[in-house]
């Protein structure tokens, strides 16, 4: 399935977009999506991110569905 993944901060800069599409198999997990994104980053020196599914931080084993709102969450630095 094709997922649209939102990007922020250093990830948005490195990939030159506010979102990208990644292709993963049915039954894919948050970990699978992060692996696909790492491949897309192509060795750029980026911080290891977490994944948010529907605006909640996901664990590596959490399932991802095509209808989910998915986002890369680099280490946060607000305040």
């Amino acid at each position, binding site marked *: 399935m094709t997922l649209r993944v*939102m990007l*922020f*901060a*250093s990830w*948005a*800069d490195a990939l030159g977009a506010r979102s990208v599409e990644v292709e993963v198999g049915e039954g894919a997990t948050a970990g699978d999506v992060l692996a696909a994104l790492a491949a897309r980053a192509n060795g750029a*020196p*980026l*911080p*290891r991110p977490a994944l*948010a599914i529907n*605006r909640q931080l996901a664990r590596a084993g959490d399932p991802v569905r095509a209808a989910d709102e998915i*986002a890369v*969450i*680099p*280490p*946060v*630095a*607000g*305040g």
Partner: protein
Amino acid sequence: MRSAIVHHPIDVAALVDEVAASANGATVLFTGTVRDLSEGRAVSGIDYDAYETMAAEELARIVREATERFGTPHVVAEHRVGSLALGEVSVAIAAGHPRRAGAFDAARYVIEEIKLRLPVWKQELFTDGTREWVDARVTP
């Protein structure tokens, strides 16, 4: 209890007024501002990026947690995003409480949790013309 991610300058006096209540004997206001040095380098400004919908939900959760932990409904917080100049307020938290310990602790809780949890990122603009995402300093 209220929170918001905003794109305009934060009116800190309005936040203080918002937590006023006749039962409160103490009010604490915390503001974070853009300062001129970051790890020894001269800074001219900061651009804040955010996952705004998630940040708004998370900030609301943090503020609600503070009201429950410290027993006061009078907690408000705003985080600004976009381009900020030196000295501008990026985050402001006001907490009113019958007792001073509760007001201090509630405001402190909110800023500590913001630093840990809010999906907001800062890119520092240095006076030498370079810029750097703070997140990217973390080892991959």
